[in-house]
């Protein structure tokens, strides 16, 4: 390893430390006995987990966020998969409009969308309602669902569907019995995307939230702004645990996908 490579390696590992330290440093603070966040943590206690699970407001927020995230995952996956299928099977001019609109929710700052939706929901009586949050989060999640699902659709040989239809299946049967099983791993990861985008979304919920119907990110925002107690790292520990489980699940799905994907017809020769 020459000097140049050594310097590059050292620099990159320093950057990785910069990335990892704030993510890792927060976790042990969940067990601190102090009323405020401090590093290194003092003492060792599970109190903050107990406080989180016994506090009515935190539990309501957790339940509310969970409901929103599950509904968002379902809505964005169904709507996104329908549109992706139409797109991949030749949407023409409508497809161009679709692609132009698709990047909208990614490019437009969340603050702008949050303010616009707040005003709109106030007028139509959706502000602070479950439906309002689900609509807002589905808009945010849709681009990611479409990218995940359409990538999978493009990797499936269309000849399989054609064969099914030649054998008398309707278009819907061909999709449900041939294509959907093949893209299922990606559809499930798209749903996970939708869930996480909704569950972890701080900005739109910040503007939409009322006094009573707070989501988990909104409660966390208030705690960081006002108290900065070890309840935040306690939640981080719980979320990290869930993320690790999801990652393991996703890896298993990918493995299943590899075993399941059929070779394209032209590759079978």
């Amino acid at each position, binding site marked *: 390893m020459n000097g*140049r490579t050594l310097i*590059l*390696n050292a620099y*990159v590992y320093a*950057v990785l430390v910069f*990335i*990892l330290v*704030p*993510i890792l*440093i*927060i976790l042990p*603070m969940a067990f601190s006995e102090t009323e405020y*966040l*401090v*590093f290194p943590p003092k003492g060792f206690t599970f109190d903050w987990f107990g406080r989180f699970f016994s506090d009515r407001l935190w539990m309501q927020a957790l339940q509310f966020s969970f409901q929103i995230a599950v509904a968002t995952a379902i809505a964005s996956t169904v*709507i996104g998969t329908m*549109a992706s299928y*139409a*797109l*991949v*099977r*030749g*949407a023409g001019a*409508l497809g161009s409009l*679709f692609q132009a*609109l698709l*990047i*909208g*929710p990614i*490019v*437009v*700052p969340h*603050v*702008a*969308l949050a*303010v*616009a939706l*707040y*005003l*709109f929901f106030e007028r139509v009586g959706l502000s602070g309602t479950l439906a309002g949050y689900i*609509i807002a989060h*589905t*808009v945010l999640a*849709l681009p990611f669902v479409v990218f995940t699902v*359409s990538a999978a659709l493009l990797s499936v040989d*269309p000849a399989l569907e054609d064969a099914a*239809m030649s054998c008398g299946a309707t*278009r819907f049967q061909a999709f449900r019995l041939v294509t959907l099983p093949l893209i299922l791993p990606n559809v499930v990861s798209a749903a996970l995307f939708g869930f996480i985008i909704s569950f972890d979304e701080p*900005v739109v919920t*910040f*503007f939409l939230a009322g006094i009573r119907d707070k989501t988990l*990110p909104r409660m*966390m*925002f208030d705690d*960081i702004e006002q108290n*900065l107690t070890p309840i935040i790292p306690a*939640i*981080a520990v719980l*979320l990290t645990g869930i*993320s690790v489980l999801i990652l393991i699940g996703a890896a298993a799905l990918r493995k299943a996908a590899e075993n399941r994907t059929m070779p394209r017809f032209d590759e079978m020769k």
Partner: protein
Amino acid sequence: MQKISASSAPDLAVHPQPVRFFEASGRKLSQAAIVFLMLPFFALIFVAFLYPLLSLLLISVQEPEPGITNYVRIFENPIYATVLLRTLRLALLVSILSLMLALPVALLMARSRGPKLAFITACILLPFWSSVLVRTAAWSVLLQRNGLINQGLQAVGIIDAPVKLLYTQGAVIVAMSHVLMPFMVLPIYGALRNIPVELGRAAAICGAGPNRSFWEVTLPLAMPGIVAGFILVFLSSLGYFITPALLGSPQEMTISTLISQQLREFLDWPFAAALVGVLSLLVTAITLAFSRVFRFDRMMGAHE
């Protein structure tokens, strides 16, 4: 000696035919089926995205009186003009810092294989799995008066007494770069990975040292990825809300925290709407200007 430059490289090898991300395949659907399948998407985007944004912009030019008074107020009042300039400066600094952090990481990733590549990639992707709020809380602990960074600086003797780090522009820049920097790594890595190894060897054969090879071969060819990453981070920074709201100084507002203040504290809807208008127009203009590099397969670091 022949001048070595990217332009003398065989063009086909460097820019293979661009693959469109969405390509139609299979038996085409009927027009009616396409409309039916896309209807829920268009309905949602029109009702819950386009319509709310457009009606907000309409308010900004209709209330309190028809005209552009709200916009004039933004640009004429030095306080608001300062906020606008500060936001642009912040976004630029975050993009530059992110580039300085991301470029070497992408370079090493492109030169690595196996477990090392997997490890670096995992470190870069890890932030996507952790909540932005949690990371912001971590930064506010690190930057506290008696936090780790102040202690460290005192231990090595750079400062004698704790300095104020939290609730400053510096805190916002560092924490935002921490959040947005992975978005810079992926497109640059994608561009670097597509550079054929032969080009580096050819440069070496023609007598270019590692420096010259980097500046005249690698960097120009990685430029699309660098520009894409830079624009993506710049755009995200412009409207970023969480970090400036929690780590920034109340005296040094950005456009997003100003929008929040106008809306939540002063209930000045039309003015907040005009600020959203300025932000949206800025973002749209930049997106359209760079629409060629703004491609999502590239953003995600995909092969071309």
